């Protein structure tokens, strides 16, 4: 026999469509502030504000997005808004944006007098809902009012209470790695073909 004895597939037969995690996920209340004083001004205990801030600050060095140089960083975060990161690459230091605020995922015990709403109960301990970790926040060059997480998720446009989907604000380690350095020829040739109203279907042969 000149043909394969069997030809099975185990991955290619498509599985049932996966629903995106996060659909129907319950939002959780968090507190967003520029600094410890602002947190305390919202009637939270200063000690709790300070503790959360320090926690966010410690995560800042791990989570802040990394750039090859200051110029690239400032292009996203604005002039004078970047600092050197702890890591070095072959030709210098990485840069990262400065921390512009923080998000407290834990309850700040004093209570939310300003909002007057009932306190959400902390359900993370029961494990039924993922908690929102306390983390640093940033502001982009083009949009100085919005607080964003290290992975560029907008969370609030003013200090105080905000609601977030926990899955959208899970901290990730900063990526030092550059991407997009392969595939440029494909893009260029695709463009050349488009001018001839043709399309390059494959980069195989």
């Amino acid at each position: 026999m000149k043909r394969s004895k069997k030809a099975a597939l185990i991955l290619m037969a498509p599985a049932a469509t996966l629903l995106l995690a996060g659909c129907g996920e319950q939002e959780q209340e968090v507190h967003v502030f520029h600094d410890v004083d602002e947190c305390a001004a919202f009637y939270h205990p200063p000690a709790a504000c300070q503790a959360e801030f320090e926690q966010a600050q410690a995560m800042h060095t791990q989570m802040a997005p990394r750039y090859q140089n200051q110029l690239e960083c400032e292009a996203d975060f604005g002039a004078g808004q970047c600092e050197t990161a702890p890591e070095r690459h072959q030709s210098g230091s990485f840069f990262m944006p400065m921390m512009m605020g923080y998000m407290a995922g834990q309850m700040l015990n004093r209570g939310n007098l300003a909002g007057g709403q009932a306190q959400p109960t902390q359900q993370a301990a029961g494990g039924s809902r993922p908690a929102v970790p306390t983390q640093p926040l940033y502001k982009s060059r083009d949009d100085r009012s919005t607080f964003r997480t290290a992975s560029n998720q907008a969370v609030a446009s003013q200090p105080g209470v905000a609601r977030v989907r926990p899955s959208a604000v899970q901290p990730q380690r900063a990526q030092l790695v550059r991407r997009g350095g392969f595939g440029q020829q494909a893009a260029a040739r695709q463009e050349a073909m488009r001018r001839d109203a043709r399309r390059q279907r494959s980069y195989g042969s």
Partner: protein
Amino acid sequence: MPVVSAVTAANMKRVQSTPRPGWQAYAESLGFQFHTIDGEPYWDESAYYQFSLRQIEQDLEDVTEQLHAMALDLIPDILADEQKLDQLAIPADYRDALAESWRRGDPHLYGRMDLVYDGSGPAKLLELNYDTPTSLYETGFFQWVWLEDQLMRGELPAGADQFNSLQDKLEQAFANLALPQPFHFTSVRESIEDKGTVDYLLDIATQSGVDGRYIALEDIGSLDGQYYDLQGEPITGLFKLYPWEFLLEEAFAEQVKTSQTLWLEPLWKLLLSNKGILPLLWQKHPGHPNLLESHFDNGSALEKGWLRKPLFSREGANIELVTADGKRLSEPGPYQDAPFIRQGLQPLPSFDGNYTLIGSWVVGDSAAGIGIREDNSLITKDSSRFLPHIILD
């Protein structure tokens, strides 16, 4: 019973056939999303080709392995000769890395050579697609399934076979290559056809016990001379369905020299996927029955009975030819930027008005089956249809 003359019976035949009802939906359920492209049929089972076992074994299988050995045999000659490397337009910056990939014995997985063959006489080598060959899934899997289905339905004579051990051989290769784990597979994000081919290889590799993972080419990361996946882990092994001559012109090319990544196909395949291998083969084996006379192009006007194609091109792009009676044919494309070769024109045989090309697969160093493409012109292109075949004596 149709009366068939003895001469015709021995010949390769094109046989009309009834497509399996509803095969399109079935194809899609098996991951074959590109069976029809831009509304035009690509997989075409309204006919099949029939060969005798002798034709397959002597004219195609043996010839494929012989041509493959001749091509590999040229590599040390090329590496030892700067002029040949110049002729093949190998970037000077990467010659050391390329030679190193050969001396180190970086493994190769697969390749496909395109042959002109009409059932009699020696098959002639048109080119080696030895870096990024496609039509793999169609050949190794869907053609195989077609045969089994049609045998089961009684649409094909019992005992019909197929020259197609592609999937078996790929599975063995993945099991034997001792690839670094995990092993990544990559293709250009927007090409569903390339993703289909890569998914198929990933599937086979997984069946062989390889911890295979997909990453879009555009998502590959680079840091300090290494390549990284989206989880930030170094890429230790990478199958890429993307030509080396493109990769080496791109922003992350430099790290090819420093990274620990094992590439499939290896960098040395740049020599064989290059159309310049055709004149070099001809120089070493002039008059070989399975070769067409070939030369590096000198830029002069193309004479009757010759064809011109770029060193690097795909899917029939930028090919120009003049038939024996002076008819000029050309195919536009995005590959104007490489030097060209010219090759004696061996017109593709015509079956019921279709021009037929045979893609003959090599896995490791073994012939592993064929896939057939049909076009309505002498130049086989990405729009050419794929037809199945059988062996029947």
